[in-house]
């Protein structure tokens, strides 16, 4: 069986993820992909590097997939997050969810990405056209200034 969650350093095989959750019982499959945007908050981005506290990130991702199955009536969830350097348009995260019915598939997919963004110890550093790089704090955007 495909693991519920994985961290990878190469392009994510999204088709394999879809196939992992497809089954004769599941009428709906939802695949969410997060990708690197060229412009973020008005700044020109040339790429992003993702870092993680790998052991804990994997543990949290697995816990999210397992919790989703409990919360959303046995939704079948697989999560892959990419680490390392990504260019614009590359996929950083892929979440595949399958369920008998689409209501639960949409709800579970959305819950998983929000939980991932809330609690999984992964960080991203944006690279800008001027050559600078900054760690992103989603609450205050970039960590350019010390948080006091």
């Amino acid at each position: 069986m495909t693991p519920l969650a994985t961290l990878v350093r190469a392009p994510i095989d999204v088709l394999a993820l879809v196939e992992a959750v497809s089954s004769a019982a599941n009428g709906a499959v939802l695949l969410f992909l997060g990708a690197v945007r060229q412009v973020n908050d008005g700044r020109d981005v040339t790429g992003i590097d993702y870092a993680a506290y790998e052991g804990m990130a994997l543990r949290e991702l697995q816990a999210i997939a397992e919790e989703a199955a409990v919360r959303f009536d046995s939704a079948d969830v697989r999560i892959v997050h990419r680490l390392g350097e990504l260019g614009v348009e590359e996929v950083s995260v892929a979440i595949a969810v399958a369920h008998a019915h689409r209501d639960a598939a949409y709800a579970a997919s959305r819950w998983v990405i929000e939980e991932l963004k809330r609690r999984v110890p992964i960080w991203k550093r944006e690279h800008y056209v001027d050559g600078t790089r900054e760690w992103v704090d989603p609450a205050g955007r970039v960590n350019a200034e010390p948080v006091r």
Partner: protein
Amino acid sequence: MVYDASTRMTVTVLLFASYAEALGAASLDVELDDDSTVEDVLAQIRARPGADRLPPAPLVAVNQRYAGAGSAVREGDEVALIPPVAGG
């Protein structure tokens, strides 16, 4: 043998992303009493150069789980400071 209540221990604190940059290291060893808490770890970290770039109450994980300031820290525990997460 006399029980020694003040045994010291060394705990390694993992640092990531902006916190690793602020403190100039991917991990720091801190000396603690063996009945210490997360707050005691943070007090040690705050004394380090560069710690002024950390928030007053950074998130902490003990053994890969988020832990409150009062949580116990024991010899051999894996302690980590968790900057604001930005996955996805």
